[in-house]
């Protein structure tokens, strides 16, 4: 029996690189939840520098979970925040709202906004719903979302956003809004959140114009 167990143990250790840890111990609970980690490159036509190379599940408030990569197809403004933030995050939200309001209605309908929370513990769907209500976010193009800790870390890393939880559960983080094109490639970014950033806004407009839907080809 011992040998059988041992053989099992050896095969576990030998299969791939798995199980180098003590395979005999019961799986412990890990506070670093990596189960959502899927940073395997997608095997399709996604450009190499597209953020949609990251394949993970988003939980937008009021919607069923979606794959991050399913946002491909239209330009996206993406930022990260946490709902208990009292200083910068409300400004980021307001900045996004001003940008969207400055667009032509047809453009506004096509641009999606993703705000992903850093706070995987306290930003429950209820907390995020309250945040949306507080900021009068009703447009279905706005996704206020949560994701698993490992995925939040990976998206932040890919966007170049630094963040760190403090002992009082607030977060230090860089305030950055990134514009992705329809393929998920970053086209512009801004850290200006206390004033207009006309340059960034013209990048958004230019991208929406460049990626405007093509007339349907009626050639048989």
């Amino acid at each position, binding site marked *: 029996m011992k040998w059988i167990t041992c053989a099992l143990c050896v095969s576990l250790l030998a299969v791939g690189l798995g199980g180098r840890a003590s395979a005999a111990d019961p799986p412990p609970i890990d506070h670093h939840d990596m189960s959502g980690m899927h940073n395997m490159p997608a095997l399709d036509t996604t450009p190499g520098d597209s953020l949609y190379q990251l394949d993970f599940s988003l939980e937008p408030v009021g919607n069923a979970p979606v794959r991050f990569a399913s946002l491909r197809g239209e330009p996206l403004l993406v930022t990260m925040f946490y709902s208990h933030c009292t200083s910068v995050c409300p400004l980021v939200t307001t900045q996004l709202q001003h940008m969207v309001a400055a667009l032509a209605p047809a453009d506004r309908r096509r641009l999606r906004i993703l705000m992903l929370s850093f706070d995987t513990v306290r930003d429950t769907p209820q907390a995020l719903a309250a945040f949306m209500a507080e900021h009068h976010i009703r447009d279905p193009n706005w996704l206020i979302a949560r994701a698993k800790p490992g995925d939040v870390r990976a998206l932040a890393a890919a966007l170049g956003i630094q963040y760190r939880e*403090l002992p009082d559960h607030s977060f230090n983080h860089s305030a950055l809004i990134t514009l992705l094109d329809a393929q998920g490639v970053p086209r512009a970014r801004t850290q200006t959140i206390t004033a207009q950033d006309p340059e960034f806004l013209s990048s958004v407009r230019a991208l929406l114009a460049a990626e405007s839907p093509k007339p349907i080809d009626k050639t048989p």
Partner: protein
Amino acid sequence: MKMRAWCWLLLCLAGACAAAERLPIGPAELDSVLSTGAGQPPVHVNRFVLDRLPVTNGEFLLFVRTHPQWQRGHAPTLFADDDYLSHWAGPDALGAATQADQPVTRVSWFAARAYCEAAGGRLPDWQEWELAAAASEHLEDARKDPAWRERILDWYSQPASKPLARVGLGPPDTHGVQDLHGLVWEWVEDFNSLIVSGDSRNQGDPDKLKFCGAGALSLQGRDNFAILMRIAFLSSLEARSSARSLGFRCAAAGASR
């Protein structure tokens, strides 16, 4: 325990001795250099297991052979820069200039993470790494030992062009872990949390409000130069960056005691 020893013996007979084992560390209260201010309580670090050795070229080669999407030239540019594994002779060959038992370097954070996931673990976070790296051969926390500090700092004066030594030559610390100092820099899971500073691609206007939260963190233990060097280095990286002396090792949650 006896069983595990047998398993390791079998593995060794099978020629896989080089496969790193993971050693338990903690739980512990860590006086972290990243504490947000003097008088802050120590950080609680849960028990975890850490690879005894950094991941080697040989181990990483096996990984890219079974995960070809992580081979040089296949990994998307989002996940790896141009320098990724550039010291290897080919996408799945080390070549004569690269030894299998040298630590693998020129790997991005994304690649290191994918490796650890495939190896049934994850990257250690900074505080786990800091706790492990505080130990010398004799002390669990040797950070105040001048002789030990001196020895670590010596490493920084080595020329960077010197070929990397093979893993396992450093003395085991009190946990049995080797080469945390003196061989390579190592990725941590939360490398992008260490110093929250402005986006390096867009600096210059100090009036821009860049942060949410309590502002700058005050580094404690400023005299611990070797650790602060690590933090400065890691926080300067992008997730796709690779560097000649930047490698990694994996960790996993530890069974509770």
